[in-house]
Each structure stands twice: as structure tokens, then as C-alpha cells.
């Protein structure tokens, strides 16, 4: 009669490891260690106006890094944020931000045109390569041009982090949303966790 006991032990072991894994994956700290996400940035918004992190103090910032040439992931992320904000209704305390990691193609004008298809509260940002490198570094965001993705210097693809971060009114990291989070779940979490 040893076998049933083994099965039970095995099942318990699986459950325990699943719990450990769940805690690990639910932890916001897996993106980067501790409170390193966020920080100061100096960029240019979609109206070509200089902006810094200080302009967002006092409001929650929902920040995503992408590029407008991106045909799949970025429109999905912008639509998710737009839908979540529609669900929440009037929330001037939450500012969604789209930071372009494509400084060559994404001028303020291109960003403005791109964002017209999404929620009117979304602020587009771009900047010099150095400014965007610094902002991406502050947020632990990875991005790179896919070399050889086309023969045309204007038609390249980029790989980039797909996480949306929620930063508090003090600029501190609150939580993150993985790509694919449904709008209703994002809205619920925003409502619960925004400060």
C-alpha cells in the first residue's frame, strides 16, 4: 500500500511548487530587483513639448514602451489601455503614456497621428536617442532594432519589452501588467491599486 501514499506526496509536491511558482510570477519584483523601476526622464511629448517625470507627479502614470511601426503588440497594448480607461470612466488621476523607442521614425507628429486612434488621454513621448536610452534604462526596458529585418533603412522591425507599468503619484512603482492582460482586469487592478 505504499503507492497511494507516494501519489499523495507527489501531488502535494506539485501543488507546493505551483504555489511557489505562482508567487514568483505574481511578484512585481521579477521584472527587476526591488525599487529600481522608474526614475527621472526628459523627453518630448506628441505636441513637441519638453516633458519630464516631474510633470506627472501627483498623478498615476501608466507607462508602455513601444513604437508606431509595430503592427501587432503596440496597437493591442494601446487598445487595452484605452478600453480599461473607458471602463473606469473619467480618471484624470491616471495618465497613460506611450514612450517610443524608435527615435528615428517616431517624431512628435507621427506619434500624435498614431495616438488619434486611441484614448484621448494617452500622452505620446519620444526624444533624442540618448533621452530614450536613459528613460528605458530607468524602467528596465529592453529594445533593439531587428538587424536585417528588411533591405530598406526605413522599414525595420524592433524587439521590445511588452510590459505596462503603473507608477504612483510619487513616481514610485506600484505594479505592472503583462501583455495580454484583458482590459477589464486592467481596469479593476488600476481602480484598486492607483493611489
Amino acid at each position, binding site marked *: 500500500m505504499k503507492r497511494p501514499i507516494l501519489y499523495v506526496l507527489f501531488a502535494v509536491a506539485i501543488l507546493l511548487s505551483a504555489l511557489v511558482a505562482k508567487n514568483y510570477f505574481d511578484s512585481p519584483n521579477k*521584472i527587476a530587483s526591488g525599487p529600481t523601476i522608474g526614475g527621472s526622464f526628459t523627453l518630448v511629448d*506628441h*505636441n513637441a513639448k519638453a516633458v519630464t517625470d516631474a510633470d506627472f507627479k501627483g498623478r498615476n502614470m501608466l507607462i508602455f514602451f513601444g513604437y*508606431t*511601426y*509595430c*503592427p*501587432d*503588440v503596440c*496597437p*493591442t497594448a*494601446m*487598445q*487595452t489601455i*484605452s*478600453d480599461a480607461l*473607458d471602463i473606469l470612466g473619467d480618471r484624470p488621476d491616471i495618465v497613460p503614456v506611450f514612450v517610443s523607442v524608435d527615435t528615428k*521614425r517616431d517624431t512628435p*507628429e*507621427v506619434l*500624435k*497621428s*498614431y*495616438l*488619434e*486612434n*486611441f*484614448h*484621448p488621454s494617452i500622452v505620446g513621448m519620444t526624444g533624442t536617442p540618448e533621452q530614450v536610452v536613459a528613460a528605458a534604462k530607468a524602467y528596465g526596458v*529592453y529594445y533593439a532594432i*531587428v538587424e536585417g*529585418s*528588411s533591405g*530598406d533603412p*526605413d*522599414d525595420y*522591425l*524592433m*524587439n*521590445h*519589452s*511588452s*510590459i505596462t507599468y503603473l507608477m504612483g503619484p510619487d513616481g514610485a512603482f506600484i505594479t505592472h501588467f*503583462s*501583455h*495580454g492582460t484583458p*482590459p477589464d482586469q486592467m481596469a479593476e487592478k488600476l481602480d484598486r491599486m492607483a493611489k
Partner: protein
Amino acid sequence: MNKLNTFLAAMIAVYAFSPISANAGDIMVMEPWARASSKMAKSAAAFLVIHNNGKQADTLIAAESDMSKRTEVHESYMEKDIMMMRHVDTVVIPAGGMATLKPGGYHVMFMGLKKPLDMGTTFPLTLVFEKAGKVTVNVKVQKAGAMGAMGSKGSMDHSKMKHAH
């Protein structure tokens, strides 16, 4: 005509004349749709479902369109929360099976878009299969952030909203 024949005739008519599907031999392409692009966009993506009713696998080997300088099949895939994108040479449609091009996976990528894709319009796209040859479909343009052929359910069309930019 008995009821069955009427039904079959109706089905044939639906498949033959439906704007949402096109077929060549055993390959049938369903619900082709694209995301609307902004006025300054240089890229766009289309999504669709390919059914293979045959007894042999077939392979999507190319996509052709007049909408852009280059039309290719691409795949988005995730690696440790980083969204990657790559050009794929082929997509296999198994015998009796299907292949789905949808957000987060495969898409037809229009690189060097010649003019914006406006919501509500359609444009032709030709898919080239190894066995079935060319299949041309009319792609329907949905809103910019749509997640499916009919648009994402319940969400608002922000392009028609007044902007405070």
C-alpha cells in the same frame, strides 16, 4: 429542388460570393481583416484564418499586395516579456486543419505602406500557397486596436472621438 439541394446551393452561393472568404482548391481563407493605420503610418498588419480541407498539408509561401512596398508574413512571439518579431518564410496548414493569423502570433505585414488603411474600407491581398496557388481575398479594415474580424467587443471607437491634443 428538395430542401437539401436548396441548402447546398445556398451554401455554394455563400462561399462563392461571400466577401469574407475566398478559396482555391482545398484552401479556404476566412475573415481577412486589418487594423486601420494612422495617416502617417508606414506599416500595417492583416490577420485571417486559413482552412485546409484537403488530404495533404499545404504551405503559405508568400503574400502579395499593392498596398505596400513589401508584403511579408511575420510572427510576433514573446521571450521573457520581450515581444520579438521575425519574418517567416512559410506557414504550414495541416491536412484537414487550419492556420490562424491573429494578434500576438502570425500576421501579414505591410512594410512601406503607400497610403493609410481607413476603417471600413477593403483592399485585395493575395496569398500564395505551395499547392493551391494564389488566393486573393478582400481585407476589411477594422479600427486601429481591433482584436478580431468584427472589432473588439464593447470597446469605443476613439478615432471618432474629439481629441484634446
